[in-house]
């Protein structure tokens, strides 16, 4: 019996191989004509700031987004086995899952109504 992960490993190897091949080929084949403008980050001519505003700190708003993402990520962890075993589990599990989703959506409603998703 072959290991079920062998195809995955082959795919992984293929992925790495393809990336290496593409980058390598362009290194060899591509024309190289450098000038100063090409090396700049923005070709419109603006220089990137040496140091971001606020010492490189991002606004706290991102944290909220990240937190919401985690919540739905964790929810999906439960959804996955539920979906896989749905046929065996029957009505009881469906009810429980719906209850779970409703409860999590209460949090979503709160965040939405209080402007946690607005970006201004």
């Amino acid at each position: 019996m072959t290991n079920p992960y062998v195809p995955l490993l082959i795919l992984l190897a293929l992925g790495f191989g393809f990336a290496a091949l593409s980058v390598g080929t362009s290194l060899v084949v591509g024309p190289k004509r450098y000038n100063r403008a090409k090396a700049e980050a923005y070709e419109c001519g603006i220089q990137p700031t040496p140091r971001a505003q606020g010492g490189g700190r991002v606004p706290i708003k991102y944290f909220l987004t990240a937190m919401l993402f985690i919540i739905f990520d964790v929810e999906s962890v439960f959804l996955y086995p539920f979906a896989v075993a749905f046929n065996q589990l029957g009505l009881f599990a469906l009810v429980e899952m719906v209850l779970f989703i409703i409860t999590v959506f209460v949090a979503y409603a709160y965040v939405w109504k209080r402007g946690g998703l607005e970006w201004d």
Partner: protein
Amino acid sequence: MSALPAFEAVAVDYWAVAPMLVVVAGALLGVLVEAFAPRESRHSAQVALTVGTLVAAFGVLVWRSVNHHSVTFGGSVAVDGPALFLQGALLVMSSVAVLVMAERFGGVGGDAFTPMGASTPGSSQEAAAAKAGYATSEVFPLTLFAVFGMMIFVSANDLITMFVGLEVLSLPLYVMTGLARRRRLLSQEAALKYFLLGAFSSAFFLFGAALIYGFAGSTDLAKIQSAIAQGTTGMDGLLVPGVLLLIIGLLFKVGAVPFHMWTPDAYQGAPTPVTGFMAACTKVAAFGAILRLVYVGVEGSRWDWRLGIAAIAILTMVVGAVLSVTQTDVKRLLAYSSIAHAGFILVGVLAFSKAAVSGVMFYLVAYGFATIAAFAIISMVRQGGSEASHLSQWAGLGKRHPVVAAVFSLLLLAFAGIPLTSGFTAKFAAFAPAVTSGGTAGVLMVIVGVLASAVTAYVYVRIIVLMYFTAAPEAGEGEEVVALMPSIGTTVAITVGVLATILLGIWPGWALDLAGRAAQFML
């Protein structure tokens, strides 16, 4: 696949868990109120909803759940005598604590809570938010979630349930600790410390649970018990470290030495009503879980670790009592006093008898009511608009506010364990089983406990002397220390605390009887 047994949904005794369902439903409604109700009506709506939920849950518990002693959800939840007793106590105490949290002192939102938790402390935005009538009424659903977690905690019959309960009760408390209106930096620091050490203690608990799972092959307390009784070959090395790590994780929550480091900071920084809630209810929940763990789960191995926990109990009493002498802040002082009380309760826990269970439960109730009332009074005493928590500010309070000072003195006497207060009965109920069934270690612990009580009594009497027999320092106009006029909610809360303290001191029979009848764990 057909040869396999089909999936069967677990049998659920809904009446047994109905109080918890009521609480979580109330919490969800509270979140929806936060989302949809207009700002002006949120505070009143939340207070009504929260108190209503807690009272309704208590009603359901007394009406139905008491007749539904059962181990349900496939053994992961045990609703038995101790669970129901502690859940009932939690519901009553938390509704009293919510009344204190709702205190507005004429403002728009809860007086103890910041108008906007995300604004920079001391910034113009904070002032503008206060002026615009913003309030953090989220504390009420958060409180309900914490109570929900505590109820899960005391009825958890499986280490996984216990862990999730621990997290559900802790997370809201971490958030609420950081929401004080005054001295916000201190409050935020306290929240961070509480969170970090709490997360650390959760890790201990998980590590212990993993070792126990390795030993017993299950996280079910009943299975752990039978695994200990049978004894397994070769795996015994996992048992004692596992048990110790589990207990350490739980002792963090009650603030036993040397896991008490967060207690003074968190108690001082948290909004005062939250401190009261935390001190009373978290202790009930954590000791409930400890009782179930050591009496149901790992009781069979107690000779291997009992002395270690006894050492912790002695250390807790001594350190709590001695350090409370040096405190100059009332909230920190009560924090160290709560540490000492945790030690006293541990003495009862380690007696391993049914009487000990009822004694510990009685102690938790007696201490809880007095604590909530004491912190309610601290939240009333003000100087120049902020809480007068420094001891020197309390000098001469007895002359200007005799009632407030008298009530506080009574509560302090209860903490000290003076006869005719609940504290005395409670100490007796917790210490007596330790003498009768605790062996030499039990007697030793009781001796240390009595000595530590004497030390703490000195501290409390010193405060009483300060309030009555020391002249207040001269203060300019508007700078005197005053006790604000409490609203009806706070008054009710303090009255309940005082009545409980007197009633359980003078006529404790019925409560001891109730606790005694509820002291039988189920498997």
